[in-house]
């Protein structure tokens, strides 16, 4: 455009000035389109980077009707992302964990740390920490970690960047234990299993008629095998009929515990019911749930108020 001979034709007189705070207008782009595919909408003033991370999260932590998936969906829709909060490790004596068969369960109202947990139901609890109420010793993350560190078999640390005064009741319910099926075993060789910290009493072999005798030291006869439970190794004596398989339970350590500031409690959860009912001890020393306590009554009243019940159905 040439500006050499501009000629002003008209100049308006009123009004000549406008002043104010510009308002933000969101303009949907391809991130919004990708979000719609996983039923996510952009939060007010959410950046491309944050929105993209929520969409990524939807792929890895999908929504659904289970406890975990419900949490995923609700938290994500509010813009809360799960974050690693604490790490629980095994204390060692030399190179060996102090706990014989360790397991950690993070439940609705408490954390139970077993020094020796067996699949047959026998268990020795190292430490049990209640995390549900403000007067519980481990209600804040920093207190929880202190308590874990004071246990015999376990230690814990808070990830950098995590606030130490967060509620530990918002740690995601999970267990250190998981099951491995059909891990291959080479005959006559030292086989590294998929994981270490094998739970004692949980290992079963697919052809137990071949491997029949577990030994403490290196096997010396057909049918003998030795298990290194800490390091996840199995050593078998040479047999001629090839491969075998084993299944076992294992505890993963260090256990990385995620945090979400959204909490879901199931009224059917035995541990949560422990918080809602008065507990009475029978003559047999068995603890049973009695009438709802004040908190339980309040919750059930709210539930009845909000939800239609038809007595007798």
């Amino acid at each position: 455009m040439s500006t050499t001979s501009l000629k002003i034709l008209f100049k308006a007189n009123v009004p000549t000035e406008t002043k104010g705070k510009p308002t933000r207008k969101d303009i949907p782009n391809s991130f919004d389109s990708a979000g719609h595919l996983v039923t996510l909408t952009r939060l007010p003033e959410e950046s491309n980077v944050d929105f993209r991370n929520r969409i990524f999260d939807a792929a890895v932590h999908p929504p659904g009707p289970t406890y975990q998936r419900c949490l995923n969906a609700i938290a994500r829709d509010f813009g809360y992302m799960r974050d690693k909060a604490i790490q629980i490790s095994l204390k060692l004596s030399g190179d060996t964990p102090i706990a014989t068969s360790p397991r950690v369960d993070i439940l609705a109202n408490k954390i139970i740390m077993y020094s020796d947990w067996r699949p047959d139901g026998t268990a020795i609890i190292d430490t049990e920490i209640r995390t549900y109420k403000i007067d519980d010793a481990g209600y804040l993350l920093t207190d929880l970690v202190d308590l874990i560190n004071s246990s015999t078999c376990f230690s814990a640390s808070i990830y950098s960047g995590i606030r130490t005064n967060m509620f530990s009741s918002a740690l995601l319910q999970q267990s250190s234990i998981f099951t491995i099926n059909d891990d291959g075993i080479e005959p006559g060789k030292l086989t590294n299993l998929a994981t270490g910290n094998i739970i004692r009493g949980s290992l079963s072999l697919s052809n137990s008629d071949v491997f029949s005798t577990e030994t403490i030291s290196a096997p010396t006869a057909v049918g003998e095998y030795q298990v290194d439970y800490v390091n996840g190794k199995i050593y078998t004596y040479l047999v001629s009929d090839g491969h075998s398989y084993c299944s076992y339970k294992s505890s993963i350590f260090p256990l990385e515990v995620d945090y979400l500031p959204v909490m879901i409690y199931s009224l059917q959860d035995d541990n949560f019911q422990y918080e809602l009912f008065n507990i009475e001890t029978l003559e047999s020393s068995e603890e049973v749930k009695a009438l709802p306590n004040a908190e339980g009554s309040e919750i059930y009243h709210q539930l009845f108020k909000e939800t239609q019940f038809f007595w007798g159905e």
Partner: protein
Amino acid sequence: MTTTLGTWPQDRYYLSYITQRMMNRAPDWTHARKWPFSVSQQLFNPLCLEIEETVSGLIEERNNMHLSSANIDLLGHLFSLDLQDEVDFSYSETSDGTMSYTPPVVYADISDTEYQLTIAENNDIKSLWYDAIPSRVEDASVSYTYQEVIPYTLISALSSLTPNTPVFPGHLSITLSGNSTWRTETSDMVYYPKVYIVGTTRKGTFKTEAIPLSYNGTFKTVSQWETVSSVFVSYVDDDAHITIDVLPFSVKEHVDKKSVYVSRDDYETYRFISLSNDRSFGSTLYVDHFTTGNMEIVREFGDTKDPECEIELLDTDENNVNINAMCIKENTKQIFCFTSNKLLVYNYGIPVPDFQSFPEDDIFTKFDLTSDRWIYARDETAVIRTKNLDVLNTPNKIRWTLKKPSGTEYYVGQNGSLWSTSTDAWIYNVGHEGSIWIENNLNLLLDETGTYTLTFEVFYSNLYDQKDTETLKSRMMLYVPSITPEIELDLSTNLQDADGVVFNSDGELWISVGDTIRKIDLFYDYYLVDYENKTVWFREEYESARVTI
């Protein structure tokens, strides 16, 4: 093929790469294919520049379809200020009768001080958002101590290293150097060098990614990594070195992602841009490309490179600068350069010399002037050769004239020395009477930036008729390119003395000062006017804005 502007391929940089790609559909012997200054290439280049823009846009749109590669700087929001309905913009008529609105003057409060803003260059979204250069730079007050995931390490020592956790999640840059084996053949298999990254991605999945290493250079992972548990390689020389970074401050060579090098022999290969501080006068941008064939076979034929050009970097006052760190902003042609106390943003590419001021050869000239190239860096010596096209006519005498970029003209001696134009600078051809001519080689020191015009005057005289004389001129252009920044911004004390700069996977700008890295916030204080709807749009958020008509 030689031309009066020198031999190619070095002379083509500012032609669109699409031009040569298109001309490679022409037969091998055509001028259109072989000569960048052919009528065909000149005719098609403007069209190809537009196609290049379109291709670039299509590539970006395709990337945007996938979350991992989508442009993180996509327009997602703007700020608007609605003007009163009664507002009536002024408008004017240009000399050609076109009516045009006069833009309002817009002010905004920045840190409690009112500043006048600049209208987006073309008053459109593209110039407001995608092409805009930063107008303001601030310390984001976020800093960390930086550690590479794998510091510069000998391959043979890699297995004993435990990878560091990336300072924040992102794509990893793997830089390989000193490797020379690019193909390992066994009886039935061929193996190529690879590096494997094992760890947890930003999505939270545990995975292993294999990254092919096809030359000594830098490669980016497809995944963004949160933690790295192990790194190992296959078929890489033990005495090569590797570095793995989430912020690749140490990378010197940047792949030109907006274009490739296209040869007339129909191969295409990567073009690289790097910062050079080898010149005594200051920093330059150095552009080169692989010597050998297609990108797919670089790994089999070595990774040596041919230089294309070197562009001098100047400040806004056109003085030389010493740049300490440089990076390219993704999806743009913007180069961010840091001196000790300033940020300079350049749009890369060679500026086009003023061809109109270059006088044409005499139409009947009997001499060509040739050189290996016609684009040089300052203080380089150009070697210009003569080529007699009419061996039946031998010159009586010759004279070299050089017009420097400053406009001063000199005669030039055969040894390259410059003489005043008041001297008699004709050089007699001692073999004239025997009809002998020996081609000249002129060495010329180019000590200024800009366009040089070299003239070769040839005087012919008839031995039998002294009045029958003729002087014919051949000319050649030599060019020492330089670019000035689009903007020059002062840096606060915290942001000074950067020795590295890079954009991370989230489009954030980070600098390194020793072991410390700092985040920099960039601001774009521009506005756009919607005259029809009486709205002013802003890119940045302001507490208050004022619009005057």
